[in-house]
């Protein structure tokens, strides 16, 4: 009888405490998951039920999609949602506001392989996956930037959307802070072969403390630069710059 009562008491206490704490956010930890060193290349085989990039690209907007990819960039975490650039051997996927705790967001380091189930959608030309769920898989790969300079001004450029890309020998036309405020996004207009392109240093992706932000701040009209970034789209190509090198 004594044991039974004590057991009941312990169970009730435990249940009660769990329930009382149930609504709170998972506490964030700074523990970074230990990752294997990046392997030479990405898996080219997809798991059962997972789309190839070609199948994803062909899928209709608003349809359900299942993909596997490697995290390449992390744009923000807020209110238990994270935004990521991911890529596989054939193409890239932008995961917009994927539900995840801060702890999970921290675990999703660059290179981490994940399986994502969500809905394909488009917002101002940017194709993305929303309302998604994910699971972390074995595997790690960090993409190298693909040179797409030759595709500027061509329709094929959109096929590389969201990939980590590079542009060589671009001429800086203008640099402007969003709202003229330091720390905000930096709008970077560059030109190539007489045509202008609007790129951006997205402050959520690369904040004012980052090397690239500072490097872009130092640029002036007429500078010739090599640029790396994620091929974001906003009513046209709007690369989110992640690295810049003055020539």
């Amino acid at each position, binding site marked *: *009888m*004594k044991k039974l*009562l*004590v057991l*009941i*008491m312990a169970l*009730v*206490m435990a*249940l*009660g*405490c769990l*329930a*009382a*704490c*149930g*609504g*709170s*956010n998972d506490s964030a930890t700074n523990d970074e998951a230990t990752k294997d060193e990046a392997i030479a290349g990405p898996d080219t085989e997809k798991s059962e039920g997972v789309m190839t990039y070609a199948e994803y690209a062909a899928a209709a*907007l*608003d*349809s*359900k999609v299942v993909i596997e990819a490697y995290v390449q960039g992390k744009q923000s975490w807020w*209110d*238990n949602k994270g935004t990521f650039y991911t890529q596989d051997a054939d193409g890239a996927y932008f995961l917009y506001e994927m539900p995840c705790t801060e702890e999970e967001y921290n675990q999703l380091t660059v290179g981490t392989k994940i399986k994502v189930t969500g*809905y394909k*959608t488009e*917002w*101002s030309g940017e194709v993305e996956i929303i*309302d998604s769920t994910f699971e972390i898989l074995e595997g790690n790969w960090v993409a190298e930037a693909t040179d797409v300079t030759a595709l500027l001004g061509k329709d094929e450029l959109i096929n590389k959307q969201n990939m980590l890309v590079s542009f060589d020998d671009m001429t800086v036309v203008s640099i402007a802070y*969003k*709202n*003229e*405020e330091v720390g*905000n996004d930096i709008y970077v207009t560059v030109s190539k072969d007489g045509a202008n392109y609007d790129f951006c240093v997205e402050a959520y992706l690369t904040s004012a403390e980052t090397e690239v932000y500072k490097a872009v701040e130092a640029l002036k009209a007429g500078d010739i630069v090599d640029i790396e970034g994620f091929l974001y789209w906003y*009513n*046209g190509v709007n690369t989110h710059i992640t690295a810049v090198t003055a020539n």
Partner: protein
Amino acid sequence: MKNYLRLTLILICIAVTVPCMLCGCHGTLVSDSDADISSDIATNDMGVENALNEFVMPENFDTEKKHTITFWAKNDTNVNQTEIYKQAIREFESLYPNVKVVLQLYNDYGKIYNDVITNIPTNTTPNVCITYPDHIATYLTGKNTVVSLESLLENSKYGLGGSEVKFDSPSKNEVVPEFLEECIVNGKYHALPYMRSTEACYINKDFVEKLGYTIPDVLTWDFIWEVSEAAMAKDENGNFAVNGQKIMIPFIYKSTDNMMIQMTKQLESGYSTDDGKVLLFNDKTKELLYTIYEHAKTRSFSTFKISSYPGNSFNAGQCIFAIDSTAGATWIGSNAPLIDISKENLVSFETVVKPIPQFDVENPKMISQGPSMCIFNKEDPQEVLASWLFMQYLLSDHIQISYSQTEGYVPVTSRAQNSDVYKEYLSRKGEDNNLYYDVKISAAELLINNTENTFITPVYNGSASLRNAAGQLIEEVAKSARRNEKIDDAYINELYKTIKSRYKLETIEGGLPAISIWFLAIIAIVWVILIGYFVISMIRKRKNTVE
């Protein structure tokens, strides 16, 4: 043995009661992030060392004492607004050389809100802050955080229009009463209005007429749905007949929060009570969602979250009815001074600005929105008074007028609205596509002519969560329609349940959360056992005594 059993039963009661009390306290009408915020602020409330004393109005403002006050403001991606803030600061500092104002600019209200919340526990809030009453309601969960303006507003020396104020300040009576009333939070004035706007329906008149319709004096929802469906007809090449393009989304709503709020207000079908009881999840809302689903399914209706800025599609001739804030008017129309799409995609057409569609054309209702200002409490009442004077300065006619001209805003004082300068500004509508841009001035006139038809939603700690939930109902239904998911009563009921849970709305609507009710039931059972045990013990004891 008996003593042990008694002790054990008491411990069970304690074990059950403590967590249950915790559970009961847990459910509040706030989102996940708001829940953390309230907790942070509550820390300030309880942390004696951080709590400030209630502000007491000083007899005089000491003009020798130096103050540096911070002003957190928001602009609408509009550099003219930034310049007006800076100019106002320069002017104020020249009037009060002992006060230095440090401006910190933000792009959206949400960021200001989050930063304020973060700074409340450490008493590092700004002095003056552009904000919304919904946000102030949360700030007020901390003790003496936001200064009540009751003692300031009508102070004969330093109040609005006070004798010792060094500038031409408007009197309390010259602040538009409807706008001032919106600044009452927890029964007291805790803010001053800064600018006011509402929503407008921006209409491509050419397309409406091409479809064989005439824009009515007062728009109705039925009219918009009907024209929108008509606009979905395609030609033999698969292009939309009305615009000859592959893309046409006839009706795009920027803020679905506002859409649902205004629909429920127009129908008086229930949103929330003044004290925060949630009424939104009812059968009338269900009917509205069915209608919205229908039009989202045909793709004649979409939202900002799904299809981006209404103004961009509108300007590209891919949208007929764009509902957005009057404060965004400079981005809308073929000749808009601010454009977010490439020039080659701009289409030329006539833009008509109308109030949002109505269910009852005889009794129009539209939301009042726009920034307000509050001041935060500080240890030094002189610093608070300096903040108050600066906030009051922002109601000066020239600031009210110049800021309102940056967008389709309306000055919040009748004095500025009735001034010759402002009247002349309105009269020059359409003279150019910049300061006198016709769409912008029409948007401002819309609010001036409908101030008595505006309303705000009840403000209480957590009211922002209900606002988000209202919009999310529309977003979820619209997404389901696009994904070919069927909806029925079961779907709506499940959606209600999900949204209530996501935004933690169960508590206010239906009393305690289910988990708390469950544990309270356990408490009751345990107490019944305990009382039963004592009764039986007493009976046995008496029996033994008798024997």
